[in-house]
């Protein structure tokens, strides 16, 4: 067990050299043999978990780059292609309109991100900062949407969408999650934790409710905006059940639905399926590693506030 906090005395420091002033630097420079062994073991375990959790992606990436002379199922398996090629990616594009699918997914995910941030913060602001009759009712209503899983109601939502002419449209995919209870409640708690003083000053200056919302409060909750944005984008990009239900013609498929279709048609050509999965996942991984700092900071902030 190696729970080492920067504030605590490092477990590996011996009594003779208990660091008092600069524990961080000391620990970096001098590790006792026991500490070194412990640290190495720690990295070894981390590497093992890394292989388990990231290995499958790397292996699939390798497979997607394998050429005709490469074997996919060999004993022992190997993932660095001996006959590397990008043909599998162009084959994906030959079979399914993958560019169209990416475009559809991008529209769905982007619009969903914007609406969740905008409508979620509007509702969250009203709930947290404005006094009016019905506030509690509205709050409970949004809470109820969290308690009712979408999986329980999607058949009825499909009927509703059919009556509204939303079947087989991207709007039909987006609308049910255009602003979720999760986004609203996250914004509500973020606005609740803002000091009242900012608001009161704005009121004295004669600001309207809209100005207080847009000019004063929104700039103070950028962390929550990031969290709501990232989660909305990821959810919309990855969602499968609802797009599969509501989209009927191929040209409207989002990437996940299209990918499933590709796998069905190309079950025998593992390299092409691998290329398809990589097309779907690589953009998201890049975005994630770029936004990583924001993400973990924002996630922590949201959790503490929520």
């Amino acid at each position, binding site marked *: *067990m190696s729970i080492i906090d920067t504030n605590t005395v490092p*477990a590996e420091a011996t009594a003779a050299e208990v660091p008092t002033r600069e524990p961080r630097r000391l620990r970096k420079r001098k590790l006792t043999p026991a500490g070194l062994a412990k640290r190495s073991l720690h990295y070894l375990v981390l590497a093992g978990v890394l292989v388990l959790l990231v290995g499958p992606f790397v292996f699939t990436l390798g497979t997607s780059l394998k050429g005709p002379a490469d074997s996919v199922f060999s004993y022992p398996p190997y993932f660095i292609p001996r006959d590397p090629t990008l043909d599998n990616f162009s084959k994906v594009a030959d079979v399914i309109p993958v560019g169209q699918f990416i475009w559809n997914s991008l529209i769905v995910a982007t619009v969903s991100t914007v609406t969740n941030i905008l409508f979620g913060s509007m509702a969250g602001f009203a709930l947290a900062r404005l006094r009016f009759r019905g506030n509690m009712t509205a709050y409970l209503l949004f809470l109820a949407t969290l308690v009712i899983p979408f999986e329980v109601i999607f058949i009825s939502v499909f009927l509703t969408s059919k009556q509204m002419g939303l079947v087989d449209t991207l709007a039909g995919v987006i609308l049910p999650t255009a602003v979720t209870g999760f986004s609203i409640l996250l914004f509500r708690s973020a606005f609740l934790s803002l000091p009242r003083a900012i608001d009161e000053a704005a009121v004295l200056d004669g600001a309207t409710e809209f100005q207080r919302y847009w000019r004063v409060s929104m700039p103070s909750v950028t962390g929550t905006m990031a969290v709501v944005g990232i989660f909305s984008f990821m959810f919309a990009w990855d969602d499968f059940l609802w797009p599969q239900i509501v989209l009927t013609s191929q040209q409207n498929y989002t990437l996940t639905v299209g990918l499933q279709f590709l796998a069905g048609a190309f079950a025998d050509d593992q390299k092409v399926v691998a290329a398809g999965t990589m097309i*779907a996942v690589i953009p998201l991984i890049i975005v994630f590693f770029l936004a990583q700092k924001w993400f973990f900071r924002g996630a922590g902030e949201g959790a503490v506030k929520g």
Partner: protein
Amino acid sequence: MRPRRLLTPWVLLAPALAVALIFHIVPFFRTVQLSFTDFRLASGGEYIGLENFGALASSDVFWLSAGNTLLYVIVVVPLLVMLPLFLAMLVQPKIPGIAFFRASFYTPVIASMVVVGLIWVFLLREQGPVNWLLQTLKVVQGPLPFLTDATLLLLSCMLVTVWKGLGFYMVIYLTALANVPGELHEAAQVDGAGGVRRFWSVTLPSVRPTMLLVGVLSAIAAMKVYAEIFVIAGETAGPGGQVRSLVFTIREVGSGFDGQVGYAAAMSLVLFVFTIGLTVALQKLSRENEEA
């Protein structure tokens, strides 16, 4: 001024209220209403009382789906409560390079279930890398039929659910671990408590509320399992249609050209009751544990 001020909150709330009412609240009541009808997508239907629920009770497919779903919860939830905690403790210390490991362990979470499912379908093939590994380590004699045997298929789906969920719950635990006062560990250490001892008497009690949260979240998610089943077991739910969950069957029955919407709605209500019941039960269980 005054009437406008009264209106402002509702203007701000309007889009959110519209979405919540049209796409969540009203469909819920409509589901209840539909469950008492034999409504079909193409041919309509009428009120038939409790007949749908009677039909459910005598339907093998329904009991199979419900059984699989409960089994899913029983297997997946304990794993998702414990494993991510260890993972969080592994990536908590601020040692060089730890940010990289943290972010990497999160990769399965950001990929869609369809992508993850397809990747594992590949890895779990009869001649695939997992079978190679198991045979090389002499765990099994011949390759295991992960994708053709009904029981193994269900287990494979569970494996994928757990594998994809680890990083998500790890982040939740990380927040909880960050709030454990360092002095507690320090004091325990001074008292001569070893690593295992400190885990039982310091870490575990401090993260117990988070364990409940993770238990409830993963249980609700497991009740709704769908995508991994569809991707791994296929549209036909594996050999003999055996590998199916409640949501899988609801979709199968309730969609399509002439979907049995009324019957599917009845099944949806059962799913709802199960989900709520499970949540309440878990909360009660943990409260009793705390009092004991």
